[in-house]
């Protein structure tokens, strides 16, 4: 065993000396290789972490939301719908929700205005998300003036700021009382934005959704499972889009690496010839080349993965922020919770380390089984 280890160490010694003889070329390869692994691993870690977090958080979203559609567009729902829906067997509770959007021309940001079901707010009082508070540089007791639907300025006192840890779901929220909301948007008392239903038996949600559309054909039910599925597909799509964008770079690297690994230069062939002439066995030459591939690919994988981990979970994925942000002014300050999918990491390992190592061995085997004299010529 000891002899085997010593033998491998000598081979590594030789491999490293051989790699350092072509320092610039090999360091360049290592750098690009690490960068590719870094980019792929960053996308993978970020999307998976967000996907899991979205799944966990949104599992508490309303079981069934009923929207009213008019001419294909989301419209306000009359309160009579609420009464009728409460009568459907299996519906435990039905509530009208009031929410909407407000574009703030001062900071050019969109807010989500919402009447909370879980707290009562005094007239003229609001609770804002941490993103809104940051954008306006304000805190408890400050005033935020918004322009109501009738054009009048409406000063609202900030009663509280939502915890910054919940920014992923609340950065742009402004919570206000029902009376303020209705006055602000000039929405009559008998109308709601949409309706949220609670269902006694979760397995009946689909049946109840069916009953809702039968009762009110102008409605569109949205199930919690659909909300979760939408986020799943958004992150899968996003990951796919980034990988497609990266595919050009990945292919270029694959060609470069393949060329480097599989096409032996005349100098390398001569080197193999000399090694064989001085007594190296074919298996030794192959082992030496295996180590050459392994040294580069293992270093690139470990380096790239570690950098990606730091970038995503310690650097809040700062390279992706401009892409995710788009034209939005409000962007939640959050660090993804590091949910790592071991299978994804293993796949990345096999896809990055094995092909390169294999690509270095095959041509060497071809050169190594030839007569040293023929190879050197």
């Amino acid at each position, binding site marked *: 065993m000891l002899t085997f280890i010593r033998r491998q160490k000598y081979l590594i010694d030789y491999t490293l*000396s051989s790699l350092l003889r072509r320092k610039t070329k090999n360091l360049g390869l290592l750098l690009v290789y690490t960068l590719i692994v870094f980019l792929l691993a960053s996308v993978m870690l970020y999307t998976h972490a967000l996907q899991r977090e979205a799944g966990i958080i949104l599992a508490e979203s309303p079981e069934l939301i009923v929207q009213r559609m008019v001419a294909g567009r989301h419209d306000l729902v009359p309160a009579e719908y609420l009464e009728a829906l409460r009568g459907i067997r299996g519906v435990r509770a039905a509530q009208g929700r009031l929410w909407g959007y407000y574009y703030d021309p001062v900071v050019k940001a969109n807010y989500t205005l919402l009447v909370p079901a879980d707290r009562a707010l005094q007239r003229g009082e609001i609770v804002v998300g941490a993103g809104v508070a940051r954008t306006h540089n304000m805190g408890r007791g400050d005033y935020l003036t918004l322009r109501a639907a009738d054009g009048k300025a409406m000063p609202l006192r900030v009663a509280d700021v939502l915890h910054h840890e919940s920014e992923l779901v609340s950065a742009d929220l402004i919570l206000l009382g029902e009376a303020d909301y209705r006055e602000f948007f000039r929405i009559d008392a008998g109308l709601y934005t949409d309706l949220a239903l609670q269902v006694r038996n979760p397995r009946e949600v689909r049946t109840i959704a069916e009953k809702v559309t039968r009762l009110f054909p102008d409605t569109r039910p949205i199930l919690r499972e*659909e909300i979760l599925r939408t986020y799943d597909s958004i992150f899968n799509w996003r990951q796919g889009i980034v990988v497609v964008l990266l595919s050009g770079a990945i292919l270029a690297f694959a060609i470069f690496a393949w060329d480097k690994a599989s096409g032996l230069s005349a100098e390398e062939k001569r080197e193999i010839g000399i090694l064989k002439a001085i007594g190296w066995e074919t298996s030794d030459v192959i082992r030496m080349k295996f180590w050459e591939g392994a040294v580069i690919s293992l270093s690139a994988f470990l380096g790239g993965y570690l950098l990606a981990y730091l970038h995503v979970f310690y650097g809040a994925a700062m390279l992706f922020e401009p892409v995710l942000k788009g034209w939005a002014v409000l962007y939640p300050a959050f660090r993804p919770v590091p949910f790592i999918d071991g299978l994804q990491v293993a796949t990345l390992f096999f896809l990055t380390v094995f092909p390169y190592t294999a690509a270095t061995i095959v041509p060497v085997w071809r050169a190594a089984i030839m007569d040293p004299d023929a190879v050197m010529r």
Partner: protein
Amino acid sequence: MVMRRSDAFITALGVLSVLFVLTFADAGMKIDGARQALERERALVQGLGLTDLCLFTEARYTRHPTQADLHTPFQDHPLALEHFPTGSLFPPQPVYATDADIHPQTEIPD
């Protein structure tokens, strides 16, 4: 005594491997540490009846993709092209099972 290249490499690889394994341990600890924050977020989502993540606030249908109209990419008029950057990162609106299941007899799903 000068360190052999192989020893230096094996040491470096060992350090990187340990760091690699440590990322999983670190992730586990961070997840444990984030449980409280996640619970707080879940409670907020439940209390306020929230439906979406606040990741893309630039347009209403990117802020609440799950609540958006089915024709949102053409929201301004028919054939209007999507112009928000986030739109290019969005998948086409999924055809919900309910649309197909609830109205199998209708020609145009709502």
